[in-house]
């Protein structure tokens, strides 16, 4: 993208039809003239290019206004916009929100750090219940401490704190039924402890009887409770030793309240009974949706194929004589038919119709640019001139809408142009332009002649 001195000389020689030496001599004379003028008059104006001025020891260049507009044609007509205070507030609020979000994170971490402490009471309760309910420990009689005493000891011992943390994780993984247990268990615990139990139930004095009962209950619960396995699995992940404690606790609980555990099992069964048909219905609905969607796609595909065949037939019938009309005519026929038949079709259409107008247009534009010069704001759209400037008033996703807008403008006697443009981000738009102009300044002048919706909402662009 650089035009070196040598290239410039060769281009000049070609355009003047002289040898490179003569062109270079003319070029040197031009430069010397500029330097001389800037030295004497402090300015040297080069028509069509700009003005060289003396600035301190060096030279500055002020480009010609027309040339500057031509170079800046992409952004011609764009003026600074005042940002409304409400918009600014929104931006500031967003920024604050983001900052607050960043600040929240450390707070969240702090909460997490605090949460184990808060949860210790729950965890302690959990930890106390398994201890007292562990059948192995009960049998050996190793743990006879009261739950209150154990609560006081846990925070002091680091190993037990670890246990608490793991216990908390374990609680999160467990179903609600298990999480609710600790609230009721401490009341039951004293009765379950081997030291106190015999006093309350003199019938169950022997350990053998207790052991038998426990075994029976455990067997029942293992059959009834489907969540016990998940508890075991999660327990294995965290602590292998706690698994039996949890199962035992649920088993012990049932000793004092067998009806509760039986009711839980029934509830679970009822949940399962409702859950299975609901899941089946959802799956069936999803399958039906995809099946219906597939049918629709098939229909669309068939319609597209039919349209293609029709287009090919029309193109075959209309031989070469009116090339310019071949492209647009079938499109217009399709547009007339499509809205009634297929409403959701606009997406695939642009892909089919794109190539038709594009390749036809450049040929006449390049051939007869100098002769016909169909520039101006009004008049029929004879051809799209590549390199000409136009005032874009619509840039739409939908080709049909763009065509409707083009037709509306054409009815108002404007030279309306429709073409497809690819944006830098890869998206495609159908642009409707008014008029064709040789220079940007002509296009800018023509904007003042446009009616109001278009006068204030437009931009000038070069047709490429």
């Amino acid at each position, binding site marked *: *993208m*650089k*035009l*070196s*001195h040598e290239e*410039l000389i060769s*281009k*000049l020689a070609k*355009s*003047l039809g002289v040898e490179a030496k003569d*062109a270079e001599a*003319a*070029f040197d*004379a*031009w*430069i010397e*003239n*500029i*330097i001389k003028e800037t030295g004497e008059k402090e300015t040297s104006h*080069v*028509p*069509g*290019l*700009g003005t*060289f001025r003396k600035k301190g020891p*060096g*030279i*500055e*260049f002020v*480009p*010609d206004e027309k*040339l*500057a507009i*031509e*170079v*800046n044609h*992409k*952004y011609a007509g*764009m*003026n*600074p*916009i*005042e*940002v409304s205070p409400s918009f*600014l507030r929104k931006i500031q609020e967003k920024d604050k929100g983001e900052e607050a979000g960043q600040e929240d994170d450390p707070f969240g971490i702090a909460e997490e750090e605090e949460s184990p402490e808060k949860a210790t009471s729950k965890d302690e309760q959990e930890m106390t219940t398994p201890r007292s309910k562990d059948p192995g420990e009960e049998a050996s009689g190793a743990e006879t401490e009261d739950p209150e005493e154990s609560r006081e000891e846990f925070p002091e011992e680091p190993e037990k704190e670890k246990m608490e943390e793991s216990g908390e994780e374990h609680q999160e993984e467990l179903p609600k039924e298990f999480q609710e247990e600790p609230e009721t268990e401490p009341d039951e615990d004293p009765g379950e402890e081997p030291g106190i139990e015999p006093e309350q139930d003199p019938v169950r004095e022997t350990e053998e009887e207790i052991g038998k009962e426990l075994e029976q209950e455990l067997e029942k619960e293992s059959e009834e409770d489907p969540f016990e396995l998940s508890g075991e699995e999660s327990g294995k992940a965290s602590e292998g030793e706690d698994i039996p404690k949890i199962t035992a606790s649920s088993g012990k609980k049932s000793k004092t309240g067998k009806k509760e555990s039986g009711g839980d099992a029934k509830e679970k069964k009822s949940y399962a009974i409702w859950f299975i048909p609901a899941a089946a219905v959802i799956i069936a609905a999803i399958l039906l949706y995809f099946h219906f969607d597939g049918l629709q796609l098939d229909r669309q595909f068939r319609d597209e194929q039919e349209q293609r065949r029709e287009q090919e037939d029309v193109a075959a019938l209309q031989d070469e004589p009116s090339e310019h009309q071949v492209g647009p005519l079938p499109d217009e026929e399709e547009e007339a038919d499509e809205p009634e038949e297929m409403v959701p079709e606009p997406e695939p259409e642009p892909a089919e119709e794109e190539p038709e107008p594009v390749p036809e247009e450049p040929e006449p534009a390049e051939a007869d640019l100098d002769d016909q010069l169909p520039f101006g704001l009004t008049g029929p759209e004879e051809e799209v001139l590549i390199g000409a400037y136009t005032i874009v008033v619509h840039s739409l996703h939908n080709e049909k809408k763009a065509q409707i807008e083009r037709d509306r403008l054409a009815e108002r006697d404007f030279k309306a142009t429709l073409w497809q443009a690819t944006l830098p981000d890869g998206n495609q738009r159908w642009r409707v332009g008014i008029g064709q102009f040789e220079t940007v300044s002509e296009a800018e002048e023509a904007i003042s002649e446009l009616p109001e919706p278009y006068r204030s909402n437009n931009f000038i662009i070069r047709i490429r």
Partner: protein
Amino acid sequence: MRGATMDQKKAENKISSIIASALKNHQEVQIKKLGTIKVQHRNQQQEQDKSGRVFLTPPADIITFLPEK
């Protein structure tokens, strides 16, 4: 003599048109003894005036000149 000046005038017009067309295509033009003329892109900017009003300046392609040292 007059013919020579006419040729020089024609050559100058051609030179300026060649440089102008190169700049329109965003090409950098190197002119010996003078400097380099090129097109630079300026992104859109948000500016605030003394009264506190905020303006959004559109992007632009600007011709810049770098004098030869």
